[in-house]
């Protein structure tokens, strides 16, 4: 029934109903923000990516296919926005090498704790593909099937990426002196 409720809310948004729009934001802003936080490693950038994702979603409501779950759609947009934002900030950093890297210092990471810090740093060292699949599995608690819907890839590819990503994370944490 969540799907039909979301579909009805999207229909109301298409007709200009602001309350329906607000209901969708309130329902999904927290999970979307959390995905963005983990992909970007920076709360401020995550807020920007979340905002951009919702604005893009509602500008493109006509393209929303009700055969897919709304959360899959908004997650995918948020992931793309986050990855694009990360690329842009990287490019800006290359232009100004004196600027500290986002997510590199304790103040800019999501958590201040050492272990949490190490895990976030480990995530940030992965490629976008590996980081994204780990975030969706372990921080958003999505199943293989849900991840495949969000990313538009097969479940087989989800498993392959997830298993490789875990292995790389494990290697990296051990190399950084974290005992597993």
């Amino acid at each position, binding site marked *: *029934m969540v799907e*039909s*409720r979301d*579909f*009805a809310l999207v*229909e*109301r*948004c*298409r*007709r*200009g*109903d*602001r*309350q*329906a*729009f*607000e209901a969708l*934001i*309130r329902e999904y*802003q*927290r999970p979307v*923000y*959390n995905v963005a*936080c983990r992909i970007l490693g920076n*709360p401020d950038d*995550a*807020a920007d990516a*979340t*905002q951009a994702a*919702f*604005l893009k979603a*509602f*500008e493109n409501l006509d393209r929303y296919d*009700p*055969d897919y779950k709304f959360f899959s759609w908004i997650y995918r947009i948020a992931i793309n926005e986050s990855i694009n934002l990360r690329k842009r900030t990287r490019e800006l950093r290359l232009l100004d090498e004196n600027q500290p890297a986002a997510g590199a210092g304790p103040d800019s990471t*999501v*958590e201040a704790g050492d*272990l*949490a810090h190490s*895990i976030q740093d480990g995530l940030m060292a992965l490629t976008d593909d590996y980081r994204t699949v*780990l975030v969706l*599995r*372990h*921080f958003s*608690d999505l199943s*293989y099937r849900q991840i495949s819907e969000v990313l538009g890839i097969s479940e087989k590819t989800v*498993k392959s990426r*997830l*298993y490789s990503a*875990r*292995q790389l*994370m*494990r290697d990296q*944490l*051990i190399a950084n002196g974290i005992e*597993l």
Partner: protein
Amino acid sequence: MLEQQTLELINAEIDGALRADERAQLDAILESSAEARAMKAELQKLANLMDSMPEQTPPEELTEQILARVRLPKRHPTFSLGALMSSLQPAQVGLAFAAGLLVTMGVYELSPGQLADVDPASVVGTMVLNPDVQNVNQADSLTISEPGVAGTVTLSAAGKLQVLSFDLQSADTAEISISLSEAGLSFGGIARVAASGLAADGSYEVSGGTLRVINQGHQAFSVFLLEAGVDAGGREISIGISTHGAPVFSGVLRG
């Protein structure tokens, strides 16, 4: 060095995705390989650590910031009957409706609580709640019993006003289309008298002589129709219901 298949089995175990035959296979490997046992323990601990990381709370102002920037499609005008009635005396409401002054499209929220404060005899919409006392003649009705959608639609006449009363239960989102122009009718308004599930504010549209209403859950509402021209008699109103674009019901009401 562990084989790729062993790593896949360990990862599937961590995700709770092992089949029975795979579990037996993994158990056998774990029993004979200390390296596999160590790898499983490490990957399991890593997964547990990530699973237990605290959720982040978005900034409080984030919703407002998004709302401030979004540009939604222009909304159809809507009106609250409650607000309307608070500014007009009950008799004026009845006169206004009868005179066609409320022909502007709108959703009229009509709750039993509101009706308790007004004279039912002077508000056209109250015929929905109690048709017997309103001198309304029931002309025809349809019973709908389709997978996912069930209920009744009744056509009544009150002078030059036609009233379609819907009492529908739909598991999924349903779009109801009502052909008005071919029946010589125009849209006068909607009064919702009971709703659970989706509150369908704004979920209606009139275009090309057809009224479309989005319905979900249990909804009872009445559509007020005005004669667009001379009453030719033998009126036929086509009702169609579809879910996710696929027709599930069609019928004709004669009045």
